[in-house]
């Protein structure tokens, strides 16, 4: 049985009906065709599905879409302003913080969600803060550099 469902995705209001069992990631990738949000596991650990819900990084594979009722959701597609990359996206590109690109949307959003949490986080703090995101390609080295610079650029 579908129930009414309204929220804001990447700044745009969405009103529809949804099955209660639909996961947020299924709603984003399916009806909204926002396929930048990826699914890498079924136990809510890899973090590839991370989106911002009211500014906070959450795993869209481990929440029902209906739990985002009324919320403001940002996916990777909503980060850049036109052709201008978000500072975190730009930092990932500059520092080669991505290889295959599959974990990247979740990683970038997780990093964006760090802004304002700790001022000028150390390398160790950034590594700890990425505890909910797996990357199998980069060894995290360049991701850490990118996050450091991206956070600095976001507050600059």
């Amino acid at each position, binding site marked *: 049985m579908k129930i009414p469902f309204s929220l804001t995705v990447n700044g745009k209001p969405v009103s529809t009906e949804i099955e209660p*069992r639909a996961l947020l990631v299924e709603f984003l990738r399916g009806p909204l065709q926002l396929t930048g949000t990826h699914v890498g596991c*079924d136990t*809510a650990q890899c*973090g590839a599905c991370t989106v911002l819900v009211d500014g906070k990084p959450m*795993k869209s594979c*481990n929440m*029902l879409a209906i739990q985002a009722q009324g919320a403001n959701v940002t996916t990777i597609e909503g980060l850049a302003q036109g052709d201008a990359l978000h500072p975190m996206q730009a930092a990932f590109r500059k520092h080669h913080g991505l290889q295959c690109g599959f974990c990247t949307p979740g990683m970038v959003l997780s990093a964006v969600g760090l802004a304002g949490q700790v001022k000028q986080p150390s390398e160790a703090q950034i590594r700890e803060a990425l*505890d*909910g995101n797996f990357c199998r390609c980069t060894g995290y080295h360049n991701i850490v550099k990118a996050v450091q610079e991206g956070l600095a650029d976001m507050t600059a």
Partner: protein
Amino acid sequence: MQPFAYSEPTTLAKATGAAAANADSRYLAGGQSLIAAMKLGLSAPAELVDLARLPELRGIKVEGNGAALTVGAMTPHAEVAASMEVGARIAALAALAGGIGDRQVRNRGTLGGSLANDDPAADYPAAVLGLAATVNTNKRQIAADDFFKGLFETALAPGELIMSVTFPVPKKAAYRKFRNPASRFALVGVFVAQTAQGPRVAVTGAGSRGVFRVKSMEQALARDWSAKALESILVPASELQSDLHASAEYRAHLVGVLAQRAVAEA
């Protein structure tokens, strides 16, 4: 995932009423364990009663002139970790909350959800038991010592809802956790506290029947609150969990090491 009915009550009465009306219903808090279990087919409730619209289940209150903290059941771990009130009064609790799962999980997972699930390797049960907290439900107050009943089992009756947990502020406390490198749950977690009623030592992750207290350590600490006082105390491995990730013998050893370190840190 199996289909289920969903309601999002805005009053406590409606929430508990909905649960009472359907024996196969489950309360939905942050859903970080429940939804994962439903995805894997390990849990298939007929109805979910979402607690998200019940403001009375959220927030952190200082009680009795700072003698205790009451944390709403729907307060996410990240909020407890970042709370000034918690940090100032029970820093060990804030640190524990800040080490649960990962950052995304901490943004959704809640105290009440964690306790109702009672995963034997979860962190919060160690704090609740270690601080002699009280679990406040819609029906009664349950002392920590009576709340945990084994693996994934609690004293909660069907339909009973955790509203909040009251943590007495201890004289000192600390939590030391040795992570399972895969799941990040506690391979062993030890919460020590010097409370008004004396020292308490609660261990999570290691017990074959869930979180437990180490009375021998508590007695030793009552005589002498020091890491040294625990040096010769070994928890019997026979009562501990042995699995892919650690033998009971190693867990027993870690309980000792972590307890000493927690006492030194507290």
